[in-house]
């Protein structure tokens, strides 16, 4: 399988703190990668680097073999990378259907004048697909955490991605909601979408991922299938205590 996304020797420092330290890993086409590590190990920083929110101090990021290090965030989204956030970030003053539509609005002013994002019908289809039917005109404060996670997913899906970086997609959800999101993700995998999944909910993470990369203090410590990883002594010490 070809590598879809790859980071090589990625390093990011915040002052004296090395948040990501010479880290390399990849995701193959058709693969779901788990990214594990204790809080503060650099998982979200890695997502921010891949999306171009942060500029790395050194290292490279490749997508479909192309070095995307100089791409601004909107170009990374255009070529097929999307993400969700650990704490959902809805546009609070908008009905959720409009919020989802915002993610499809063109990044160029000229393009915006030609057409202001996807047609509402297309957005409604995406919203329905993630299970938001009947709640299109609701505002974020009226939704449960499960539905806010669905809005996050819908916004990512609306950009027509090849890979989505999922940051704690199961956090704060009930067992029933986790099962529903799990089903949705599996359906999207079957449709050919790749994911990098960050989650402390190992019960939910285990059956989803093909392979796991574990980091600690921004550094690579282990890699392998889930069952092998959770029995690794270094992982046990860093993650389970």
């Amino acid at each position, binding site marked *: 399988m070809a590598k879809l996304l790859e980071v090589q020797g990625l390093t990011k420092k915040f002052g004296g703190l090395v948040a990501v330290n010479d880290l390399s890993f990849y995701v193959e086409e058709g693969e779901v990668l788990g990214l594990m590590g204790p809080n*503060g190990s650099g998982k979200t920083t890695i997502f921010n680097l891949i999306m171009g929110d942060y500029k790395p101090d050194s290292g490279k990021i490749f997508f479909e073999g192309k070095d995307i290090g100089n791409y601004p965030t909107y170009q990374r989204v255009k070529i097929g990378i999307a993400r969700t956030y650990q704490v959902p970030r809805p546009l609070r003053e908008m009905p959720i259907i409009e919020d989802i539509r915002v993610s499809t609005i063109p990044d160029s002013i000229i393009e915006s004048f030609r057409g202001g994002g996807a047609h509402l019908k297309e957005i409604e289809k995406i919203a329905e697909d993630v299970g938001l039917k009947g709640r299109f005109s609701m505002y974020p404060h009226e939704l449960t955490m499960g539905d806010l996670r669905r809005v996050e997913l819908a916004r990512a899906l609306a950009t027509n991605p090849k890979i989505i970086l999922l940051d704690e997609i199961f*956090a704060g959800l009930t067992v029933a909601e986790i099962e529903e999101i799990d089903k949705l993700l599996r359906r999207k995998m079957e449709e050919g979408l790749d994911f990098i999944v960050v989650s402390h909910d190992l019960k939910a993470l285990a059956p989803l991922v093909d392979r796991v990369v574990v980091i600690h203090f921004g550094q690579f410590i282990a890699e392998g299938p889930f069952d092998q990883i959770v029995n690794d002594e270094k992982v046990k010490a860093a993650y389970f205590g």
Partner: protein
Amino acid sequence: MAFLEVKNLEAYYGKAQALKDVSFSVEKGECIGIIGPNGAGKSTLLDSLIGLTDWRGQIIFDGVDLHGLPPREIIKLGIGYAPERGNLFASMNVKENLLVGAYLARDKMGESFGAVFEMLPTLEERQKQQAGTLSGGERQMLSLGRAWMSDPRLLLLDEPTLGLAPIVISKIAATIEDLRKRGATIIIAEQNVSFTLAHAEKLYLLERGKLTMGGTAEELRAEEYVRKTYFGV
């Protein structure tokens, strides 16, 4: 009368009713768990106890009726609050956040700093670090520490394990046990039922704004509905 007595509590956000006829009591030194799905009203219940909602009914804390009291007066009476995800002052450093927590209990500030740094040594090491740059676990610790700085007799913890790795949850658990040894009375609102069962001697199940079940950890563990809905077994 119990240390905290909640009777027929109803809370509203505009016209929407978030809590319906909620009644329970907490004895001094007890640890109580409020479990339930998101949107059930757990945070609203804690917000009501600290005076942040429009509520009806009765809340009596150590003999004092809390109705109509602003949060600062309730904190002065001895209720501390560690809200969900900390709600820290991101641009302030760790020490400044702790100082804010101590504002209404300034006379005991030295003692409180000593206790917080003893329980959470990470906070002492990172006193000068900006709160916004802390990891999820460190933020949760700072939130706990800040609540303890107000020298509370009743501590409200909202989702203390949300989004945390097992190793960090163990540290939060150890801190809660340490707080209990120091005589704290605690109410934990959590979706992490296993965590809550391990710490609380009495639990209440809150669903759609109503307390639908209550009992000891053993009693709730034995309930098929709780096992199925909250453990998935």
